C-alpha cells in the first residue's frame, strides 16, 4: 500500500482530552488495550475524519467553526464578506456530517454538481463500515427514470411464479445491497415516484416487501446508514422527490467545490490511477460490534437542561401565525397550508407583531417532531465526536443548519429576503438557518428566560404527579396557571413562543380541572 494513503493522525487528535487510567499495573503495559472500548471509539472516529480530509478527499474547507472565544475575523471585499479564523478545532461539513451519519445510523443527502466527490464520499463510508470497495461500488443504486421496484429490491424466482399456489410460496431473490450497513442511492431525484414509495418503506420502516414476502434491511450491527445524492435539493431532477422521503433525510450537505491550490494532489492521483476507497487503512474500519457501541455511545450523550430550554425556545417560534385561523389552536402555518392558503401572505397581514423581531415570520412552515429528533441526535453525535461530556449549544449550532436545511423553509415575502444586506440568505439556507438560531439564542438571553421560566416551573410541578394532591393545592395551582395566562394576555404582541406556552398552560389547566372534578365526585 502506498505510504501516502497509510498515514493516520496520531492520538490524541484533540488536545486536552487525555483520560486518566486509574489502577494501571505493569501487567497492563504488556496487554493489548481493548480496541472496542467505547472510550476509544470517539478517537477512532476522529482519526477516520482526519484520514478522510487529509488523505482521501481534497476538502480544505473548515465551515463548521468552533472557537473558545471570538474568532479572528477579516473583512473581505465590499459586500460584507468575512473570513473567520476559529480558535478551536473546526471541521469540513461535507466530510464530517456524512461520517456522523455513518456513526449514528442516519440518512444523509449529499447535494452538488457532478464530479464533486459525493458518491466517492458515500462509498468511503461503506468501506469504513467493513465492506470491500468493489462490493460497495456494486451496491450503489443508480437512480434513473426506468428504475422499477424489482430493479431495486429483487424479483421472484420464475420457477416459483409458475409453480406457486399462493403468494407465500413465492421466493424472492432479494438484492444484496438491501442488507448492507451503508446504503447508497445515487441521484435519487431521478427515480420514478412509484419506486420512491418502495424506497420510503425501506428508509422509514427498515424492511422491504415484495409478493407478500418481507426482508429486514438491518445489517449485522443493527446500525444502517443511508446516503442519497442529488444535483440539487430545490426540486430539480427528473422526478420530484416525494415529501415523505425528503422528510426522512436527517441532514443535507453540499459537496463543496475543488480548491485549485490543491492541483498537485489531483495530478498525483491521475498519474497513479488511485482511488481513495481502495486504500482505507484497516485500522480505520469499524467492526459490527464497534458500530453498535458507537451508535449507543452517541445516543447516551446527555443534553443539559439549559441546552434543552434553548432548543425548546427555538422550536416554539415557528408554528404560530396570528391570522392562520380563528380558534386559537388553529392559528398555525399548518392550518393555512393544508387549507390551500399562502403562509407568506398570512404572516404579512399580521400587523400586531414586529416582523423583524418575530423569528417565526421568516419561515413558511414549522418544525416536525422528526426533524427535531434528527437535530438532537446529530448534536449528540457532534458532541461525542468532539470528545465533550455533554451536548453544548455550539454542538447544536454546528449541526442545525444541515439538519434543518430543506425542512424549515424561508418565507420569501419576509422583508429580510426582499431588501438589504440579507437578500442572499434566501438562497444560502445554511447561513440563514445558522443566523436564525443565533437570533433565537440572543432573544432567549435578552428575555431573561435562562433565569425565569414560569411555564416551565408549572410543568415541572405537575410532572411530580397528582397522587395525594389536596383540593386546596390543586385550586392554588389552577389560579397560578390562570395568572400566567393573564400575564401573556396583557402583552399586546403575540409571538410563536407564547403560542406553545399558552397551549401548555391550557393542557395543565385541563389536567388540574379534571383532577379537581374527580376529587369532588369521589364518595366521601
Amino acid at each position: 500500500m502506498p505510504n501516502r494513503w497509510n498515514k493516520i493522525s496520531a492520538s490524541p487528535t484533540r488536545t486536552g482530552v487525555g483520560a486518566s487510567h486509574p489502577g494501571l499495573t505493569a501487567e497492563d503495559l504488556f496487554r493489548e488495550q481493548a480496541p472496542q472500548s467505547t472510550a476509544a471509539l470517539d478517537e477512532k472516529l476522529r482519526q477516520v475524519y482526519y484520514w478522510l480530509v487529509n488523505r482521501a478527499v481534497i476538502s480544505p474547507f473548515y465551515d463548521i467553526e468552533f472557537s473558545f472565544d471570538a474568532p479572528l475575523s477579516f473583512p473581505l471585499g465590499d459586500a460584507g464578506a468575512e473570513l473567520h479564523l476559529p480558535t478551536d478545532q473546526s471541521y469540513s461539513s461535507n466530510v464530517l456530517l456524512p461520517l456522523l451519519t455513518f456513526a449514528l445510523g442516519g440518512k444523509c443527502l449529499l447535494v452538488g454538481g457532478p464530479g464533486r466527490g459525493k458518491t466517492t464520499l458515500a462509498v468511503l463510508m461503506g468501506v469504513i463500515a467493513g465492506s470491500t470497495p468493489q462490493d460497495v461500488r456494486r451496491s450503489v443504486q443508480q437512480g434513473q427514470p426506468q428504475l422499477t421496484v424489482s430493479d431495486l429490491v429483487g424479483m421472484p424466482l420464475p420457477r416459483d411464479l409458475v409453480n406457486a399456489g399462493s403468494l407465500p410460496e413465492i421466493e424472492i431473490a432479494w438484492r444484496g445491497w438491501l442488507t448492507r450497513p451503508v446504503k447508497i442511492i445515487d441521484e435519487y431525484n431521478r427515480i420514478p415516484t412509484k419506486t420512491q414509495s418502495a424506497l420510503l418503506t425501506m428508509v422509514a420502516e427498515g424492511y422491504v416487501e415484495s409478493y407478500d414476502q418481507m426482508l429486514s434491511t438491518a445489517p449485522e450491527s443493527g446500525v444502517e446508514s443511508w446516503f442519497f445524492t442529488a444535483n440539487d435539493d430545490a426540486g430539480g431532477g427528473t422526478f420530484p422527490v416525494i415529501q415523505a422521503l425528503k422528510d426522512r433525510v436527517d441532514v443535507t450537505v453540499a459537496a463543496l467545490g475543488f480548491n485549485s491550490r490543491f492541483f498537485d494532489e489531483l495530478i498525483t492521483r491521475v498519474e497513479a490511477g488511485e482511488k481513495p476507497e481502495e486504500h482505507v487503512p484497516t485500522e480505520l474500519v469499524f467492526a459490527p460490534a464497534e458500530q453498535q457501541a458507537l451508535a449507543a455511545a452517541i445516543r447516551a450523550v446527555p443534553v443539559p437542561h439549559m441546552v434543552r430550554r434553548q432548543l425548546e425556545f427555538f422550536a416554539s417560534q415557528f408554528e404560530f401565525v396570528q391570522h392562520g385561523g380563528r380558534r386559537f389552536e388553529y392559528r398555525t402555518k399548518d392550518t393555512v397550508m393544508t387549507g390551500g392558503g399562502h403562509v407568506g401572505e398570512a404572516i404579512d397581514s399580521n400587523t400586531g407583531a414586529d416582523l423583524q423581531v418575530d423569528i417565526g415570520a421568516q419561515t413558511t412552515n414549522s418544525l416536525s417532531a422528526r426533524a427535531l429528533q434528527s437535530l438532537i441526535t446529530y448534536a449528540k453525535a457532534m458532541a461525542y465526536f468532539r470528545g465533550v461530556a455533554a451536548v453544548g449549544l455550539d454542538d447544536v449550532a454546528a449541526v442545525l443548519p444541515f439538519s434543518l436545511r430543506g425542512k424549515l423553509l424561508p418565507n420569501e415575502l419576509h422583508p429580510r429576503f426582499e431588501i438589504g444586506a440579507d437578500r442572499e440568505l434566501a438562497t444560502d439556507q445554511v447561513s440563514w438557518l445558522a443566523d436564525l438560531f443565533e437570533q433565537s439564542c440572543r432573544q432567549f438571553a435578552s428575555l431573561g428566560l435562562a433565569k425565569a421560566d414560569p411555564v416551565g416551573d408549572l410543568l415541572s410541578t405537575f410532572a411530580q404527579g397528582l397522587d395525594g394532591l389536596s383540593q386546596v393545592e390543586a385550586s392554588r395551582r389552577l389560579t397560578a396557571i390562570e395568572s400566567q395566562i393573564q400575564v401573556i394576555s396583557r402583552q399586546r404582541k403575540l409571538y410563536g413562543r407564547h403560542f406553545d406556552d399558552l397551549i401548555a398552560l391550557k393542557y395543565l389547566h385541563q389536567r388540574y380541572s379534571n383532577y379537581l372534578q374527580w376529587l369532588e365526585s369521589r364518595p366521601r
Partner: protein
Amino acid sequence: MIRRAGHAVNDTLGPAAVPEIASFEGFDTRLARDNVVSWGGDPELFDRFFATAIDLDRSESTTEQPLPHTVLTLASLAAWRSGVLDLRQDALGRLTEALDSGSVADSVLASALGLQASELSDFVRCQAESPFGWPARGTGEVVVARVGGFRGLGGPWTAPPASAEQLSSDGDFLITLADGELWRLEADIFGTRLSRAEPGTGPETERPSEPPASGAWPTRLAVFDTSYIAWLVLGQAA
C-alpha cells in the same frame, strides 16, 4: 529562546546510547512502548530507562533471560519514570517489594529510575511523603516542572494561564486561562497530565485521591503575564 514544557528531572539527562530492547518470551516490549505513549509517557525515556535496566540486570544476573518478575518491575518503574502518572502506585509497590526481598539488585532498580543505588531508599521515603519527593531536593524553591505552552508551538493552550489553585490532593491544580478556559493539571515528579476541566470543578468538589503530603513538600503553580508556560514550584519545607 522558547521555553517548552518539561520536567526538571529530565533536564539534566544527557544524550545516551540506548541499548536495543528485544522482546522476551511472554513480553511484547513494542506493545509496552505503544501503551506508554497512549498513557501520556515519553517513549524515548521509556526505551532509555527500561533498556538500560534490563541490560544491567543481564550483566549482573546468572540467568540468560530476565525473570518475569524482574521484567514487570523494571517496566513499571521505567514507564512511571517516562511520565505515566497512573503507574506510580504500582511502581512504588513493586520497588518497595523488590528492595525488601532483594529480588532485583538495587543498582538495576536505580537505573530504571535514573538514580544512584545509594539514593534508592531515600527516594522511597521521600515518595511516601509526596509525589514530588526526590532525594536530591536541595534548598530553596525548585521548579519541578514546566507545563502548558502555546498551541501554535505544540502546547495545549491558546491563552496564557491567569491563575491556578490547588485542588484537594498533592499535584492536582485547577488552572484558569486568560480567556476563561479551565484546565486541570495532575502531576508528580516524573509526569504531568493536562485536561480540560468542566466549570464547577474546584477544591470543594474534588475528593482527595490520597492524603495531602506533609509540609516538607509544599507545591504551588506559578503563572506569569508574559508566558504560556506555568511553573510547578516546590517550595521550602514548612
